[in-house]
């Protein structure tokens, strides 16, 4: 479903993603783990056509996202790391807007919006403005929205950031159910090892733009002779702290901050 061959992205001299190779099969739940600034979000941005690829090959559902942008965009749904809802609009209007942007016919749009909002427990609040929603509700709405156009792949970039355990639990239950029932392929990144352990069938660990390990949770633990995924992760990526705000990508952004290059 997703194939990356020597996928590379440079920002000036800095290599954010360095010749990364991986493959995700249809119906799989694939987790991408890595410390801050390791290149997770940059990879997702390239997979989702938001960022140009410097070099390497990419295939989404058999299509090249650099050449068939719009066809590829129709095939995936995405929940970004930071919120991307219009807070002044209601939940229903956000769904409506998404449906129109993805050319979902009006009647189908209404039916699916209703079904999805019900599934994610937001139907009673459909006419409430998003800015009055809690973090967990917003996240649920974003996932419901991402599924409105029946995508074959769902990208989740740190979807549980800042959520309480209840919301996190509920979110993964929904995601796993969707994967099981509708066969949606899921590509996710997270900082919570237990989530990856529980939800993902395979895990890739990325550090400094390179994949340092790839396999099932058990394989990673065996490889590093550790008991938990967290220990395996630390064994593979070291214990040095990463300062996200000073990551080279952000430094780059600061340089070109006001006027885009």
């Amino acid at each position, binding site marked *: 479903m997703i194939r990356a061959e020597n996928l590379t992205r440079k920002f000036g001299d800095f290599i954010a993603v360095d010749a990364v190779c991986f493959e995700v099969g249809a119906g799989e739940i694939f987790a991408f783990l890595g410390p801050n600034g390791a290149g997770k979000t940059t990879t997702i941005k390239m997979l989702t056509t938001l960022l140009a690829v410097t070099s390497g090959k990419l295939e989404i559902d058999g299509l090249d996202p650099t050449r068939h942008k719009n066809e590829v965009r129709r095939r995936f749904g995405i929940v970004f790391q*930071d919120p991307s809802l219009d*807070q002044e609009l209601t939940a229903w209007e956000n769904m409506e807007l998404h449906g129109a942007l993805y050319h979902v016919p009006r009647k189908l749009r209404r039916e699916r919006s209703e079904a999805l909002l019900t599934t994610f427990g937001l139907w009673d609040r459909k006419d409430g403005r998003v800015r009055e929603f809690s973090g967990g509700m917003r996240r649920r709405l974003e996932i419901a929205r991402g599924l409105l156009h029946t995508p074959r792949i769902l990208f989740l970039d740190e979807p549980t950031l800042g959520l309480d355990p209840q919301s996190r639990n509920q979110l993964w239950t929904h995601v796993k159910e969707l994967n099981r029932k509708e066969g949606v392929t899921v590509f996710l990144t997270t900082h919570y090892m237990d989530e990856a352990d529980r939800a993902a069938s395979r895990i890739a660990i990325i550090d400094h733009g390179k994949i340092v390990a790839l396999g099932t949770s058990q394989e990673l633990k065996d490889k590093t002779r550790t008991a938990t995924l967290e220990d395996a992760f630390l064994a593979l990526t070291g214990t040095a702290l990463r300062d996200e705000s000073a990551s080279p990508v952000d430094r780059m952004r600061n340089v*070109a901050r006001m006027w885009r290059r």
Partner: protein
Amino acid sequence: MSAIYILWLRELRRYTRSRVQIIASLGQPVLYLVALGFGMGAVYRQAGRGSYLQFVAPGVIAMTVLFSATFSGIALLWDRQFGFLKETLVAPVPRVFIMLGRTCGAATVALLQGALVAVVCVIAGFRPSNLALLPEGLAFLALIALVFAGLGTTVGSSLKDMQGFQMVMNFLVMPLFFLSGALYPLDHLPSVLAAVTRMDPLSYGVDGLRSALIGQTHFGPALDATVLIILAAAFVCLGAWRFSRIEV
């Protein structure tokens, strides 16, 4: 097409929902209208130019449209900050449609705001000289709105964050307003100022509006309309190009 429509509708929904903002944005035009319209009235009349309120009202209406359209265009930065921009950029819709939806929405909102200020002007005592020319006035307002919504989108796509906003305000929007003839007649100006006002797009907008509303003109409505149409097309194209190059 449905993408353009839904994004246009979004701008309108956001506008009609921000009642506080609508009232707040009436403050400045009303201040100009009352303070200048009545304050300068006596001097203006003694100079033999008639009513200053009549003269300045089209200028204040044009100013409202300028501010509203430019800011709606720059509101792109808010959407970048609050993340909504990404939702539209990742949609399977050509970028130019997204930009057109946003820009048309911004222009429509500016037009509504301008119409609202026009009503306030009438309440303050402004009287259009020829009611038959009102549609022409509306057309000029729409052109002003489109020119500056295009400009706002261009600027909004080129800035990375809110820090540049103050600069745009002080070095672009305010000069556009003060150098446009919104507040003073363009004839008998010192030659440098006259040259500068001729390069200000808003000069043609104000002049066109004034010719429709009170029958006074400096450049002539035909020239005004031509300049505005060309600039509207140019800025919308430029905005579409800048918008297509956004990376998040």
